[in-house]
């Protein structure tokens, strides 16, 4: 049977595959994709053997620094990053969780100073347990994965 791509191929750029479907718009926010002029195609709720439902994003003529792309590891640690040159996969990248997270995430402590004053949030990532947790540099409280809210990066 002929196989059709649900999201058409790009000539050059970056493909982010295996994003959990429910995290698609958070990934778009974290990478600030809503504010760039490159061609972007995406699909969501696509069938996936691993995730059940997945999303995919293809961004033409845009490449990301490791620091930039690793930020999505917070919400989509199993995402696959493919760098495309002339319709071929030129490089595969593996995400790694950064040791600190600046901006992007809101501290879940309602009385943290970062929720009341114009301050960029800063967290240390804690991964010594099975679950990812973020330790706020300011209020010293933990923001866990269930309470992780992304600050839009426009």
């Amino acid at each position: 049977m002929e196989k059709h791509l649900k999201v058409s191929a790009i000539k050059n750029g970056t493909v982010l595959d295996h994003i959990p479907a429910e995290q698609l718009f958070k990934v778009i926010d974290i990478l600030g994709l809503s504010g760039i002029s490159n061609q972007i195609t995406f699909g969501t709720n696509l069938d996936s053997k691993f995730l059940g439902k997945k999303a995919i994003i293809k961004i033409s003529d845009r490449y990301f620094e490791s620091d930039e792309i690793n930020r999505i590891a917070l919400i989509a640690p199993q995402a696959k990053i493919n760098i495309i040159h002339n319709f071929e996969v030129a490089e595969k990248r593996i995400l790694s969780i950064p040791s600190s997270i600046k901006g992007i995430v809101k501290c879940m402590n309602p009385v943290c100073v970062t929720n009341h004053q114009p301050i960029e949030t800063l967290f240390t990532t804690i991964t010594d347990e099975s679950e990812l947790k973020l330790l706020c540099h300011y209020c010293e409280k933990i923001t866990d994965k269930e309470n992780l809210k992304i600050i839009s990066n426009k």
Partner: protein
Amino acid sequence: MIKSTKSNKYMSRNLISIQDFSKEEILEVLKMAAGFEKNPSQPIFRDKVVASIFFEPSTRTRLSFETAANRLGARVIGFSDAGNTSVTKGETIKDTIKMVSNYADLIIMRHPLEGSARYASEISPVPVINAGDGSNQHPSQTLLDLYSIQKTQGKLDNLFINIVGDLKYGRTVHSLLQAMSHFNPTFLFTAPEELKLPNEYKEYLRKRNIRFEETRNLADGICQADILYMTRVQQERFTDAIEYERVKNVYSLNNSMLEGAKSNMKILHPLPRVNEIALDVDNSDHAYYFDQAKNGVYTRMAIITKLFS
């Protein structure tokens, strides 16, 4: 939550969290505090101005810091009610700190927002002392607790410390157990189910091989204790008013409960107390909470001196 304790020789410029001070720095402050207790009037900072900015009410902390600064010869400026300042006009913490640091050589700050002191220390070109940021940290209280423990027991090592009351939200409790973890203590945590010590702190102690047990019964740990550290059970922490009524009486210490206590045992309390220590305890040889508050002046003189030098 718990940051790893500093162990290097880097000298602290600010005092924001008790973990900003290494064990050596803690001992250095306690040694200096003992010197100030022997000779409390040492006007060595006559050329300095200290800003005491309290965005939240305080009795002991503000007065003892200001007394400490005055005894060191420094002049004190500041406010104890943010209602009289530009904060009411919407001034940010950043602008307030920038402005105050133009006037003063050191800033002592209390603010209801957690993390505000850390933020202030990053903005300020002069040292910042955290005099309490919400329920987060209150490191000068911890240092005066340590000074009181050392003074009454003659040592800090290998003590049995029974901490009673609100172990869930009490900031002094969390900072105290972190600071004492340098000195191989044995802890007994006495608290109602609703106010038990959070798991993250138990994990912190386990990683450091520090012995601890938990109980709900106040009578359990009085006989073995070297230090009985009482804290206030705060009504606002309870969703069930009846449960609060039950608990508040359970964690009320009276003189008859002290009969089997060790002769060296001292009762500490960060104050203010409400029901948790009956008035008949005040005359007991074990009562130390008012002396503890007095020790705050010497300890804070030591903290100011350390940050100025």
